[in-house]
């Protein structure tokens, strides 16, 4: 644990803190259909044109059902669109390598993966996909799925903030405004930054490097444009198989730092937007604080485990002075790799700059637990906030009675129907994760796809389904998920983890929106400060993490104790 690592952690947290309010302010303007931004002179005409082209009446708002229906229709159409491109990329332009079509189940998995903001990749981009597929089928979804996530969060925030309202906004307006004013301009600037750091952006085919015996093939392509939205939109699907460990995706420690920070940018801003929208900024900041606490705790645990290295290797004479360097890039080292792993799994990004499979058991446990918590530590764009709000509602309901009133959240009474929606959300993710993982662990195809046996193999299975149901997309690299059964079950887990949980969130938005706001008084449950923060952290850990403890104890936890034991217990 080096001083450089501590400085990086401190600077990272400090910058995140300072970016939260500006990002939130900008989000508030983007998410208000009448909001003004400095980009209006250029983008307002484009926005109007888009509404005309799509036949959207920006002034008319939707009920939660209409909003949810539009969202589902849009996502379904988008998934089909991406699926068709992947299936027929051989017939489409920009395919200098002449790649053939993707298999049906892989195309299903990939299309669902990108539409659900998961970006789980059962393929290697540079050896499977044409530039057209990368840019149109996938990068399009990187924008769209991120915008959908922000839209859902915005709708929920409106539902909470409004008094006896029938509508929660207009999906098409949110979609267009988030894409146009937030994601596109940011990606443009960000992409140029990455090009400056050395990320390629070209339609040229792969090149053969001279001077090597066999003539090494160096893959390239329009990388920078995909890289920017991959981080900003917490997508995480890399252009290359090695993702952000690849020097063309993430060439320098500076690009690494920017990439990490950009994952948290929008999710952090959303906490401020939320606080401002419900006129309780302290609540927004308390959520930020809880997230920051969970982030720092996880980062330190993960880094500690990685910096300590593997005592078994040390015993064999392999130096662990740099920490556990297996599967890590030398230009990042233990500190930056552990930090990246924490950030990417706190959020539902899933980009990786090191192989989580090669982490020490505890180091690998941290990303896994982060995902299983529901990715609510800043979280995915939009999904982090709405996942956190679900936890807050559960926490308020559990403990709220203790102040002697029917639980209220920001003036809205939490009643049976709201509780039902929240628990539906929680059960869906848990069922999608543990159910599919159990099926895989018991099946022949499940075990056949493993890179390791024993507890580590179980970790690989758990990680894969947690990652997919949680829409993270990062992989514990050992698993070969490319077969039919894995492609289908992982695809279904992704669908459930995204769209089955969005329905209760939308219904919650509608139901809370229709309620009256009870004015705050001395008897109102406090939603900010240390007590509430501690309550929220405990709820997240007890409801979120302890659920997975039995499964984890057979995977990374037992592996950790075996590694620490003095004698080898397994051959």
């Amino acid at each position, binding site marked *: 644990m080096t001083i450089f690592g501590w400085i990086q952690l401190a600077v990272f947290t400090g910058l995140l803190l300072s970016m939260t309010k500006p990002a939130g302010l900008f989000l508030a303007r983007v998410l208000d259909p009448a909001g003004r931004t400095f980009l209006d002179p250029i983008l307002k005409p484009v926005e109007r044109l888009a509404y005309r082209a799509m036949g959207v009446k920006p002034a008319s708002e939707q009920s939660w059902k209409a909003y949810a229906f539009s969202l589902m229709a849009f996502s379904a159409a988008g998934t089909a669109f991406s699926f068709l491109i992947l299936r027929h990329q051989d017939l489409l332009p920009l395919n200098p390598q002449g790649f053939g079509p993707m298999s049906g189940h892989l195309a299903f998995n990939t299309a669902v993966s990108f539409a659900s903001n998961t970006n789980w990749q059962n393929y290697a981009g540079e050896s499977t996909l044409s530039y057209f597929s990368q840019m149109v089928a996938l990068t399009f979804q990187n924008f769209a799925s991120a915008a959908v996530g922000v839209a859902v969060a915005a709708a929920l925030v409106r539902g909470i903030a409004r008094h006896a309202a029938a509508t929660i906004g207009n999906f098409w307006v949110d979609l267009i405004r988030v894409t146009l004013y937030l994601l596109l301009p940011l990606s443009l600037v960000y992409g140029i930054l990455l090009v400056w750091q050395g990320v390629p952006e070209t339609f040229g085919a792969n090149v053969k490097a001279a001077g090597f015996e066999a003539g090494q093939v160096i893959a390239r392509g329009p990388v920078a444009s995909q890289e920017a939205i991959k981080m900003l939109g917490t997508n995480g699907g890399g252009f290359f198989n090695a993702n952000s460990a690849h020097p063309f995706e993430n060439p320098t420690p500076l690009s690494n730092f920017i990439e990490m920070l950009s994952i948290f940018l929008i999710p952090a801003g959303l906490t401020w937007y939320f606080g401002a929208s419900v006129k309780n900024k302290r609540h927004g900041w308390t959520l930020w604080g809880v997230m920051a606490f969970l982030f720092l705790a996880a980062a330190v645990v993960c880094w500690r485990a990685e910096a300590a290295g593997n005592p078994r290797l040390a015993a064999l004479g392999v130096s662990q002075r740099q920490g556990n360097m297996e599967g890590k890039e030398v230009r990042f080292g233990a500190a930056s790799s552990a930090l990246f792993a924490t950030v990417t799994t706190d959020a539902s990004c899933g980009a990786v700059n090191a192989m989580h499979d090669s982490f020490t058991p505890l180091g690998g446990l941290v990303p896994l637990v982060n995902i299983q918590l529901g990715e609510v530590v800043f979280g995915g764009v939009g999904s982090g906030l709405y996942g956190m709000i679900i936890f807050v509602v559960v926490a308020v309901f559990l403990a709220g*009675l*203790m102040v002697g009133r029917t639980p209220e959240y920001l003036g809205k009474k939490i009643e049976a129907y709201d509780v039902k929606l929240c628990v539906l959300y929680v059960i869906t993710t848990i069922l999608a994760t543990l159910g599919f993982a159990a099926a895989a662990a018991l099946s022949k195809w499940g075990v056949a796809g493993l890179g390791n046996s024993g507890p580590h193999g179980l970790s690989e299975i758990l990680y894969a389904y947690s990652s997919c149901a949680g829409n993270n997309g990062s992989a514990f690299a050992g698993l070969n998920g490319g077969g039919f059964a894995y492609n289908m079950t992982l695809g279904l887990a992704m669908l459930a983890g995204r769209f089955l949980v969005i329905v209760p969130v939308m219904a919650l938005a509608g139901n809370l929106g229709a309620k009256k706001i009870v004015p705050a008084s001395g008897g109102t449950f406090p939603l900010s400060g240390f007590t509430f923060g501690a309550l929220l952290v405990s709820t997240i850990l007890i409801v979120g993490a302890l659920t997975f403890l039995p499964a984890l104890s057979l995977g990374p936890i037992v592996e950790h104790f075996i590694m620490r034991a003095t004698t080898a217990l397994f051959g």
Partner: protein
Amino acid sequence: MARRKASFLDKSILLPAIWASFAKMHPRAMARNPVMFVTEIGAALTTVALFTGGAKDVAFSAQIAAWLWFTVLFANFAEAVAEGRGKAQADALRRTRTMTIAKQVWPDGTWAPIKAEDLRKGNVILVEAGQTIAADGEIVEGVAMVDESAITGESAPVLREAGGDRSSVTGGTKVLSDWIKVVVTADPGESFLDRMIGLVEGAKRRKTPNEIALTILLSALTIVFLVVVATLKCFGTYSGVDFPVAVLVALLVCLIPTTIGGLLSAIGIAGIDRLVQKNVLAMSGRAVEAAGDVDVLLLDKTGTITLGDRQAVAFIPATGVTMGQLCEAAQLASIADETPEGRSIVVLAKEHGLRGRSLKDFPEARFAGFTAQTRMSGVDLDGRSIRKGSAEAVRALMGGGLPAEVEAQVKEIALSGGTPLVVAENGRAMGVVHLKDIVKGGLRDRFDRFRAMGIKTVMITGDNRLTAEAIAREAGVDDFLAEARPEDKLALIRKEQTKGRLVAMTGDGTNDAPALAQADVGVAMNTGTQAAKEAGNMVDLDSNPTKLLEIVETGKQMLMTRGALTTFSIANDVAKYFAILPAMLMGAFPAIAPLNVMRLGSPESAVLSAVIFNALVIVALIPLAIRGVKFRPLSAPVLLRRNLALYGAGGILIPFAGIKAIDLIITALHVA
């Protein structure tokens, strides 16, 4: 009714409760409570596994099975004890509902005997002295003293008469003198007494909204843990570990929230029961819950905030009149005045050193009672004509203005919120008596505490603004509504409700009925009219409006108890994980030993200890569930901090100690 506070360990409750705990094990009864239902199925599964050879270690599995059954029994016992306390009261009530033969009055004025159970709404019955009133009703003719002790526990008889706000009578009460004709207002089975019996027995208890929401959450947690345990079995198979049924069920039962699941209905029943002990009948659990949520209390000034009667607090003589002269005049004018105001004047005069005199001292005196025309009362004695009355009335009597200094006093008293009475003798103003509303003791403190809890108190009065403001200030209420008519009350309730606030009020008159019905918590006075009692959702048998404050406290206490035990129950899971998980894995993965942080004796004793703790904690918490957590009027942030430390942090730590202690005992006993 038996108002004896039934103790938790009362034999008359305990024995039937034990029987009831077994009767309640019927799956159809258990299905009402998903958490305990799953526990029962788990217990059954474990027991079946014992006999089908599914269990390898029979002694261990048998103990697990036994304790799982105990867990179910203990939860049933908690409910049965809570119900038993109500049943004792219901039995007492039932005894008063003897088979009565009523006298049904026909339109032609004749009457014929009819059995009480044949009476229907609209029938008219005649009840004479010594008879029990056969059904709830409204007096249409006559006036009588009625002994209502069967319902209220209050032995002093009350006056009931046709017309006005004292016309309702309750079935089961007894007419002591005179006779009344009563029109029946409730069919058999729906009478007040029947409802009361149903309520205290909890027979028709329906889950309250908040209880339903909590049950959904607890059921969801149960589903989650079912998934967790079922998948753990699969992961075990992958890892080459075959978990025995007893251990898996033990883990499941320990993780699902059995503590709150087992005590939830007891808390609800006990909440209603606590109100019954305060002589308040809540028509539903929903009403008790709403009482805890109330944001605004509408309090009638008279009877709630003030003692109901004005009292004389000062004599202020006019110029040229001595204090002694004024005292004497005031005393004489009030000797025959039996109103509380009049008596208070006599008392005040006595305090000024005047000898107390009675009517007998003045056989020749002619007393003038208060009439609506004169609006004065007084006495004519030895050529002296003494009168006391409102300034207006005395002014009219004197045919001109009052002396300037008397007018000034009158104005000053009115401004301070008091009521001035002017005493005049033979057309000369002697001075002013200051009558004042007496605010009940201890209210200011109580209102302060309510304010801290975020509850706004509003005083409702027919007085003018000035008087109202002065009393409001003295009593310490947050707001007041002066010169209020019943419709103003209704409008105020609606206004607060549109703002999302919950409103509670008390009332007794028929004109209060719309407001009582509109309020979220409407407490009708038992002395009030039938209409009022039907409109409200609670009835105070003592007819004490100040009781509203206690009702709110009881509602809050019930919600707090529920929240505290929920938090405690879920927090308990942490320690149980650390007891059972290492025990389950120790056999296959000895390296996991460091996870056994409690250093429990053996895997078997660890699992058994967790299950025993889980069962015993239900019993240990029954008194808390029934008594309720101690009510403290604190602001929400302070309460949350306190209770979170107590039941949250306590809930995490206590089971570590408890499980360890049980483990030490069973290891010493060599049972596992």
